[in-house]
């Protein structure tokens, strides 16, 4: 039975693995995930006086970890903060995907059919490929993508967290998706 008063010395054994897996599912780097768990425990210790027994200790620690993960993305995005004009981060630009003269998809980048897409969702391999593709995104795009589609923050919350204008935000989301699609196709999605 969970005691009503938290016992910090027991947190690593009691909640460490679960928090670590959650952190690792978000940041993919084992050292960073470990660091986030440690920061979570230290912040929880600092805020022990604010812990209310009606929330479970586990839930409380997860709330703190989630905040740490968002802070991690914010730092990641700020390291590579760029303006709208220079948002390509050295990655493919709009011109690689769309013909400048008419805005249509270029022949090389036009989306191919993902006939195997439904089955792919069940595959462990897809998860691994998607993670690798996410890791290859420029840091700011990776942070925005994760906050929107994994943490499920709203566009408004993300703009606030990362100090982005909404125009900038939409461009980043659009480019992240374009690059992920291309990366997934490069790794076999759509080749039946």
């Amino acid at each position, binding site marked *: 039975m969970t005691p009503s008063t938290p016992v*910090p*010395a027991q*947190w*690593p*054994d009691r909640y*460490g*693995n679960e928090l*670590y*897996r*959650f952190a*690792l*599912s*978000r940041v993919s780097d084992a050292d960073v995930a*470990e660091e986030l*768990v*440690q920061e979570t*425990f*230290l912040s929880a*210790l*600092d805020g022990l006086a604010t812990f209310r027994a009606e929330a479970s200790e586990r839930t409380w620690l997860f709330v703190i970890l989630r905040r740490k993960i968002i802070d991690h993305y914010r730092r990641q995005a700020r390291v590579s903060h760029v303006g709208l004009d220079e948002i390509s981060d050295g990655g493919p630009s709009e011109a690689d995907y769309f013909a400048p003269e008419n805005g*249509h*998809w270029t022949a090389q980048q*036009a*989306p191919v*059919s*993902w006939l195997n*897409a439904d089955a792919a*969702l069940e595959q*462990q391999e*897809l*998860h691994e490929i*998607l*993670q690798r593709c*996410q890791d290859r995104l420029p840091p700011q795009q990776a942070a925005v*993508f*994760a906050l*929107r*589609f*994994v943490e*499920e923050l*709203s*566009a408004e919350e993300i703009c606030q967290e990362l100090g982005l204008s909404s125009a900038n935000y*939409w*461009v980043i*989301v*659009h480019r992240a*998706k374009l690059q*992920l*699609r291309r990366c*997934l196709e490069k790794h076999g999605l759509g080749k039946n």
Partner: protein
Amino acid sequence: MLLEQQADLPLGRGQRASLWLHLRYCPYCSRYAKQTVLIAEWARASASARASSGMVLSDAAKQRMRERLAAAE
């Protein structure tokens, strides 16, 4: 970008009509519209699968954490 925006914000009537018409006559865009939804679904499913994997913190890491907590108490 209207495709992305419609997931977060209700588009105006004109924008909705414009997007519908565009997707109707641009098969690549229509295909991309479906793919962009799939990518978002997969990202969530993928994180969820990793969160329930068998990965564990090493005993050494747990020990370090216990020591940091004891030092901070």
